[in-house]
């Protein structure tokens, strides 16, 4: 083309292509974000659960505790119950055990006379510190991390609950 002037036809072509590209990008980015949104969400389930004053747990015998955690997935909220035992070995030393049996996730109970945790499902026996005494469990009872603040006891609920294996 000898002339520098753009023809009407070419002007329309270029304008259509430019506007089309802008619209594609302007809509494309939000729409892709919309689709992949669940993968972009980071959800940390980790939390310190308060269990009340440390003094309320006796030294020497395990004492049961329980708490619930809610989990929101989309628009569905599920509430799960968890429990465990605090065993204070001394003024300063304690362990927090999960009450989920490591065999098939039944709740174990503390049996004072046997001095053991006993699982009602398959008669598993765990010692006071969670070690396997008898029965099918492959590993000792899970432990929670603990901390003490201003006389109150806290346990750390893990990011990926070991119970949901």
């Amino acid at each position: 083309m000898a002339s520098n002037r753009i023809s009407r036809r070419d002007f329309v072509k270029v304008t259509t292509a430019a506007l089309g590209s802008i619209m594609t990008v302007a809509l494309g980015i939000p729409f892709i974000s919309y689709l992949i949104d669940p993968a972009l969400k980071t959800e940390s389930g980790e939390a310190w659960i308060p269990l009340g004053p440390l003094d309320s747990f006796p030294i020497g015998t395990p004492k049961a505790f329980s708490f619930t955690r809610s989990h929101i997935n989309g628009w569905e909220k599920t509430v799960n119950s968890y429990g465990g035992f605090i065993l204070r070995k001394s003024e300063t030393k304690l362990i927090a055990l999960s009450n989920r049996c490591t065999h098939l996730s039944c709740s174990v109970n503390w049996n004072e006379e046997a001095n053991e945790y006993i699982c009602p499902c398959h008669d598993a026996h765990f010692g006071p510190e969670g070690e396997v005494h008898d029965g099918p469990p492959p590993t000792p009872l899970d432990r929670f991390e603990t901390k003490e603040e201003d006389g109150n006891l806290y346990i750390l609920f893990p990011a990926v609950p070991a119970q949901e294996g």
Partner: protein
Amino acid sequence: MWKKIYAWLDERLGFDDMYKMLLDRPEPHGNWWNTLGSASLFLFLLQGTTGIFLTVYYTPSPDHAYDSIQYIMNGVAYGWLVRGIHHWGASLMVLIVFIHMLRVFFSASYKYPRELTWMVGSLLFLLTLSMGFTGYLLPFNQRAYWATVVGTNIGGVVPGVGPMILKVLRGGTDVSALTLSRFFSAHIWMLPATLAALIGVHLYLIMRHGESAYPDADD
């Protein structure tokens, strides 16, 4: 390189012929009112796209419909945008299709040989309204529920077959979970499929007859 690929594809698919047939048609001297048909088509495609995207999170059950839409609006990235476009696009589509119909009427473009184009277009308008009616229930809030109660009651007063129409529309005697799922089915499958097919016929007829010129003093 690209030219070679293009030539190879064109030889087999016939892009150039398609372009000439679909887009490079001679047009009578018109004005902006002649663009409303294309605008309707664009809105149909936009509604289709945003609608498909909405089904990713929307759940057509009375227990979850409202909550899933709340989640789209507040929980999903740009969910408000996708639903917003679908919501406002719906109203705009009804408006644009109607104005398009008025334009065709006032410019007498429905006359020979374009009567069929007009008839198919009338059906397209009714289908667009049906899309609006069925889509209105899907959020399943109070307004949606009662609008559907009233809307389906109107169908119920037809002499003789009224009660039957009412039950067919509602999937029973009351507006219920069955109403929601059949409105959903109509809204995303039956009506859009019919719309798409008739749009195809409408466009074919436009290509066959060309666009009508405005009548002049001699007509």
